[in-house]
């Protein structure tokens, strides 16, 4: 064929691309089709077999990887790199015992001291993974003899010594390694680890905050936390503040159940905790709460969380957008109530309660903490009404005082409308709420005109559909339909048509 189209990776050869990713130690190898390459291997090219092995090793196909390395070695038994890569792959699948003889074989084909150092390092590492620390120390020292300023060998020697129980010697080497290569993330972590080992007994909060929080890897976090807890276990029953920090540690690794056992009422000395960490803790808890939807019986640690983060912080950093996430909003208000048990907060909680589904409301009503906080949970709706009455009262004041404050008024109305529309979404036949909404839109007719008037009509018509005998609504509807302007409507209906001393719409 005289014209053909190929992709970029086929033009370069997927194997060559794989080698690039291997050599630059990148883990983002793109998906490529290697089938054509495998078919075209020159039968006597060890190098080619080696690179295909490398490709399979990179994509995690161990069996094919080992097979191609073996083929490369059968063609060229002096292939130094193939021995090392084969050993690496064996190490990767946890066969360190099999890797050691492969590395030993490669020693015969080393060309210089650097290569010898590399092989000794790999043998040492194999022993290290087998927890044979004395042998690991021997080989790491031999590797270091080949290159005394190699940060990798220094780090490895430090690790082997530390694991063997010689923290002093271990720290010495790791610090030296860190001095030479502070950019390497693993050396950084090991440096952190030995610092944790050597920190004084009074620094537990700092250990959690300074070292545990910045680690993103969950496994590493768990490992470090275990170390911290082992070291400070004797303090568990004595220092309540420290217990809280251990609780925080468990919270950070996602073990909420365990964290609950440590949190207590003593509160945190949280002056040194940054907002970033607070956020991290907050989201861990929120995720948990959301996962355990509707289960509000495990909120004991909320007090601790509220102490740690502060209610304002919680509110500022959480949003209530998706009705499915209402637990989050309830939680934040709840936390606020615990922190600041003012009537205003309870009213807000009551308002949010109104927006919840019937199912969640039922669960909440049985929650002991809720029961304790609200002496009479059936009053919640009234609480919400009171709050709205207050808001509407304020709006009337604005209306009187400010002629051009429409925008401001509108935003306040919008908030109220959102609350009621949420209630309606859960109980679509709630005529009481519809009347409230109609009343609110009526107040907006003067500056929103026809759109608000339409909404008023819609709500009243809906009420009539549900209850065709509501004479009061029929009358209002008639008067609206035959009124000529929004002003007339207002005059005919009157501002406080549904308003009573207990709220709106209760006659």
């Amino acid at each position, binding site marked *: 064929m005289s014209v053909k189209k190929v992709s*970029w990776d086929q*033009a370069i050869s997927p194997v060559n691309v794989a080698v690039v990713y291997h050599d630059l130690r990148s883990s983002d190898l793109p998906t490529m089709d290697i089938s054509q390459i495998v078919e075209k291997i020159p039968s006597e090219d060890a190098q080619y077999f080696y690179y295909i092995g490398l490709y399979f090793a990179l994509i995690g196909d161990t069996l094919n990887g080992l097979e191609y390395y073996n083929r490369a070695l059968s063609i060229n038994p002096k292939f130094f790199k193939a021995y090392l890569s084969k050993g690496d792959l064996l190490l990767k699948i946890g066969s360190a015992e099999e890797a050691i003889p492969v590395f030993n074989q490669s020693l015969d084909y080393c060309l210089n001291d650097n290569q010898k150092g590399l092989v000794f390092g790999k043998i040492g590492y194999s022993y290290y993974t087998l927890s044979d620390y004395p042998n690991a120390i021997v080989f790491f020292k031999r590797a270091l003899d080949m290159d005394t300023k190699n940060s990798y060998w220094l780090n490895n020697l430090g690790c082997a010594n530390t694991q063997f129980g010689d923290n002093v010697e271990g720290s010495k080497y790791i610090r030296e390694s860190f001095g030479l290569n502070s*950019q390497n993330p693993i050396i950084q972590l090991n440096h952190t680890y030995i610092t944790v080992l050597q920190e004084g007994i009074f620094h537990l909060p700092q250990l959690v905050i300074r070292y545990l929080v910045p680690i993103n890897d969950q496994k590493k976090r768990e*490992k470090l936390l275990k170390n911290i807890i082992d070291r400070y276990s004797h303090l568990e029953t004595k220092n309540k503040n420290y217990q809280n920090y251990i609780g925080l540690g468990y919270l950070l690794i996602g073990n909420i159940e365990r964290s609950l056992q440590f949190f207590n009422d003593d509160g945190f000395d949280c002056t040194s905790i940054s907002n970033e960490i607070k956020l991290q803790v907050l989201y861990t808890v929120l995720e948990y709460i959301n996962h355990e939807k509707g289960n509000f019986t495990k909120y004991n640690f909320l007090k601790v969380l509220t102490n740690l983060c502060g209610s304002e912080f919680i509110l500022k950093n959480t949003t209530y957008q998706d009705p499915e996430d209402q637990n989050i909003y309830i939680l934040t208000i709840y936390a606020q109530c615990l922190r600041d048990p003012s009537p205003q907060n309870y009213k807000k909680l009551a308002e949010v309660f109104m927006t919840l589904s019937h199912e969640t409301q039922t669960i909440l009503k049985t929650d002991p903490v809720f029961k304790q906080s609200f002496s009479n949970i059936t009053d919640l709706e009234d609480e919400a009404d009171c709050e709205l009455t207050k808001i509407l009262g304020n709006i009337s004041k604005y209306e009187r005082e400010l002629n051009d404050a429409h925008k401001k008024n509108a935003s306040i109305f919008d908030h109220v409308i959102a609350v009621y529309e949420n209630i309606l979404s859960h109980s679509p036949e709630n005529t009481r709420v519809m009347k409230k909404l109609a009343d609110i839109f009526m107040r907006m007719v003067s500056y929103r005109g026809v759109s608000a008037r339409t909404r008023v009509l819609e709500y009243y018509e809906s009420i009539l559909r549900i209850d065709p005998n509501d004479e009061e609504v029929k009358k209002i509807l008639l008067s609206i339909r035959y009124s000529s302007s929004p002003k007339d409507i207002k005059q005919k209906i009157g501002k406080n048509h549904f308003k009573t001393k207990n709220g709106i719409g209760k006659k």
Partner: protein
Amino acid sequence: MKDQNAFLYAISSLGFLDSTDYQREFSNLCLDSGFTDDISIEWEREKFVRILLSLGHIELNNKKRIFVCPPQLTLIRKDINHLSVLTGARTPYLLEKLIEYIEYRPELLELIIVEQKHPLARNGAHLLIPDAIFIKSKNVKELRELAKTVQIDYQLEKPNSENLFDFSKSVTDYRNSLMWDKRTTDDPIKSKIKVFSTNYLRFIERSSETTENQQLALYYFPPFYEYWLWECGRGAKVKKDWGRYLLLNLIQKRVLIYNKDSEWLAVPSTLPLPKVLSRSLTLCSGLAPLEVYSEDLSNYGLPYGIPFSVYFLVTLSVAEKIAQRLGQELIINEISPHPDLCNLMI
């Protein structure tokens, strides 16, 4: 799905594009991604121009106006077959004519279209780099006839990457051409915005790190930006590309990685090559360099997680010449296999 050649077709029709128009149209014509939030558009925009420059499709003037180069058939390799690549302007009509001509001579000519859909690292986006159009023939006469028939220029005597080498100066030539007329006592510190970090291989905010004798600094003298290189109390105004390599040469830092077996050369993307050298390297394969984010190369004194531009089909002699021109020594055959690091946390 956007057309890989959209930008090249557009600029081929227009002849040139102002930098403001380019900035405005970049997302439409040069980037294939629904989610541009995770991408540094500025970086990708600059990268795209660099790639097209090195592929020989465009040229820039002082005001950063982009001009399209005239279409040319350029020789890449000469072994059993002569392999040439189409550079410069391109229109669908030109391609049709090429295909039509080649289809009449299937035994003499072969057209290979390589779709250069390089992934941008760490997200699913693609830069719409124009397809590489290769034409293969057993003898150069056929290629010449083809160029004449479709009325395009040709350069088929010698592989063009070699030609370009002759044009390129070396870091030593560049250093000798500098005017070392600035003194530390006159250093306008208040105008100094950034300095080049040899640890991170990029410009960073002014910091205490750069108190050494050698320093490359960016100054802002409104409305102009200038790069000055300082060495032992003397300073000279330099070009950004050469300045960086000059500084690395002064402190003897190696940054170029070469693999002899797979014949590729990796250059940190934060250290773009001077234009002629980058064009010369690109023309070794005729393909745009691949961007790969490295991970831990700290053992070689290179920063963690930097992007590399990887050029393919670069022979050892070419790689050595490039390194020599840049005052560098290649990191070669040391990079693999990797040593292992023990981790106390695992």
